[in-house]
């Protein structure tokens, strides 16, 4: 059902955790639909110096979170804002059709965290 890449990220997710002193936090989803993701970022010189996440959800949701965290790390904020959910799915070697909607929200959570950071800067 899942690609090898998805299973790899699912079974060994990168950057799991909470950043207590995060510069920005982004949350998406709710337990009714099945998946929840929280992203924590730290920003240094307009770049993501640290990205952590916590995810409640299925294999796809966990793999997506892990993949997003890896894709985002070290990018400038503008670059990170360009990452789309589709990019993430592609990078994971594709996701089952029914997982594209609910579980593929990692980029949204990341963007929310960046927006949170930016709104605090103003």
């Amino acid at each position, binding site marked *: 059902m*899942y690609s090898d890449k998805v*299973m790899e990220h*699912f*079974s060994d*997710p990168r950057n*799991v955790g*909470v950043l*207590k002193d995060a510069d920005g936090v982004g*949350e998406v989803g709710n*337990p*009714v*639909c*099945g*998946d*929840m*993701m*929280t992203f924590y970022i730290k920003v240094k010189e307009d770049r993501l110096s640290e990205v952590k996440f*916590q*995810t*409640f*959800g*299925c*294999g*796809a*949701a*966990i793999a997506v979170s892990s993949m997003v965290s890896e894709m985002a790390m070290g990018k400038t904020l503008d670059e990170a804002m360009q990452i789309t959910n589709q990019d993430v799915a592609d990078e994971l070697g594709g996701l089952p059709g*029914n*997982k594209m909607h*609910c*579980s593929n929200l990692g980029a949204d959570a990341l963007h929310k965290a960046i927006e949170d950071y930016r709104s605090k800067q103003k």
Partner: protein
Amino acid sequence: MRKVYMDRIAGTPLHPRVKEAMLPYLGERFGNPQNLHSFGQTAAEALEGARARVAALINAEPSEIYFTSSGTESNNFALKGLALAKRKQGKHSVVSAIEHLSVLNSVKSLERLGYTSTQVPVDQQAVIDPDEIRKAIMPETTVVSIMLANSEVGTIQPHFQEIAEVCRQAGVVLHTDAVAAAGVIPVDVQELGVQALSLAGNQFYGPNGSAALYVRKGTGILPLIDGGIQEHGKRAGSENLPGIVGLGEAAEIAGREMENRIARVQPLRDRIVQHLSFEMEHVVLTGHPVNRLPHHASFCVAFVEGEAMLLTLDMQGIAVSSGSACTSKSLKVSHVLLAMGLDHALAQGSLVFSLIDSLTQEDIDYFIEIFSPNIEKLRKMSPLYTQYLEENNNDVQ
């Protein structure tokens, strides 16, 4: 890697003797039971032999058994066939909120034909109150369908006979979906007092593609599948003879071995319940604690999602199932769990263990050894767990 299959409700492996009984019918005995020549007559004998064995399993007459292709088809046949046969008397059915989708969607498709239905509620342990049935029956009600045992939460209806009595007094036909029960626990159509009962071979080491509907003599039913004269004209189509022979053999073995099987599997199941209910935190048993299928243990594990648990276990050779939204193609949480009043987040953590006979103590030990660390890892990843710990003033690790 050790393989531990605990997803019996999705289907059992074939019993080796069942397979052996089927093989001739995949070989030289390929005749069609409807044919007069010797190929056909050999087949006809096998067909009727299997019918007698299935009948014996549930204390019915052979002529009351109709072979079908799945538990789902049996339920469709019953719900639609009984209701359509009684269309002149009324067009209302009563079912419970925890019926299998094949019952609920049969009732829904009858609505397209002008029928209506009522769903009776269940309590937190998935138990149905006979009074709710009584209240739901109206003058135009003709059919009631109540599941004998629920495959998702294991509950065996403790008041089934009272429900049957309510139906008898009201003069309505009672069908029971016994797919999860027949061949597993004693099922007797006379004791239950039902007019129709569904069962399926793949729940008791028989083949997929082979199931049956019992219909009590004198009970009117229209075919779901029209055509030729097979199954007394009530279920047309060339018979799946290897499957039917396998079902017969499985029924025979199930009847004979039932007690032994239960005695063997129940302690293993109990060990799982003990571990999850008492040795772990934030896990709730779903379904009835006592009136439940002997091979069945089901839970909701808080703060984690079913599919993630299922995949983690699968990577370690352990097969289980879940009623979480993500494990279903429809992306909906099990209607059974919601009907029992569980909240959505908790229901997402559904896990169902249904044990087969070949499991050993070592298999269960292996499972218990790896289960808690798995859950711990997933919980560490879960924002819901973090939130819980924060609210309870614990440290976030």
